[in-house]
Structure formats: structure tokens, C-alpha cells
């Protein structure tokens, strides 16, 4: 077999520092986005409840034939 290439220490070093920086970046960004998305979901659910309530009232009124 062809002997393995001796990779330059600079490339090795930048590779693994890029991996580490990526891991930290991914973790930070995930932790930043998570609460925002949760808040959005919560507001969405609240609005849906409100909308359904209004629809229910409108339907009742229409059926009541006021």
C-alpha cells in the first residue's frame, strides 16, 4: 500500500480548531434560538385559542338567529 501522507501540522491544527469552534458555535446558536422558538410557539397557541373562541361565539350567534 502507498504509505500515508504526512499531513502538515498547520492543516491538522486548523482542522481540529475549526471542529472545536464549530461545536461551540452550534451549541451557542442552538441555545440562543431555542427560547425564541418556544416563545413563538406559546404565542401561536394562545392566538389559536382566542381565534377558536371567537369562531365559536360567531357560530352560536348565527345559530341563535338573533
Amino acid at each position, binding site marked *: 500500500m502507498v504509505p*500515508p501522507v504526512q499531513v502538515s501540522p498547520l492543516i491538522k*491544527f486548523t482542522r481540529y480548531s475549526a*471542529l472545536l469552534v464549530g461545536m461551540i458555535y452550534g451549541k451557542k446558536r442552538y441555545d440562543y434560538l431555542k427560547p425564541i422558538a418556544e416563545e413563538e410557539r406559546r404565542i401561536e397557541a394562545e392566538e389559536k385559542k382566542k381565534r377558536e373562541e371567537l369562531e365559536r361565539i360567531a357560530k352560536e350567534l348565527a345559530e341563535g338567529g338573533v
Partner: protein
Amino acid sequence: MAQAARRMLQRVGSRGPQLLSAAVAYSRPRLATFWYYAKVELAPPTPGEIPKAIDGMKAVVRSFQSGRLAQLTVKEALRNGLVATEVLMWFYIGEIIGKRGLIGYNV
């Protein structure tokens, strides 16, 4: 349709061990080759290599300042670009590990 599916399942079921051993037989020599190269080429830098890496970085900066970088051949520049892209891909692998999900940010 259902019959055909059942027949196929039966066939896979009866031939399962055979397929598995074929897969092992196929991948073992290839994995051995992979490890033979990966152990040397993909190894993280040893602590002793870090000063050498810093020297390498200094050399890149020096070649940039002295204008040597503008005298690279197209082939060399292309090769350097490919290496830089590869290193960038390691960053994205790190990001995938950091966010613990392959597709997007599953928030």
C-alpha cells in the same frame, strides 16, 4: 401487492444472515484501509506539533506580506483552495455536533 411484499420480506428474512456476512466481508478490507490511512492522516495534532503549526501560520502571513501568494501557480492556488474548503467543512461537522442535529436547528 401485499403478497409480493410478503414474499420479498420472506426472502430478505431467510437471506438476512447471508446478506449480513456479505456486507461484513465487503467492508472489512475497506475499513482496514481506511484506518491505515486515517490513523496517520486524520489524527489530531500532537502537542509537539502545535508550535510547528504556529510557525506554518506565520509562514502563510509572511508569504502574504511578501507577495509570494500572488506568484502561486493556478494549480497550487486550486489545491490550497481545496484544503481551505476541507477545513471549513470540519467547522460544519463541529456545528452539527454542537447543535445535536443533522438538519437545521431543531428548536
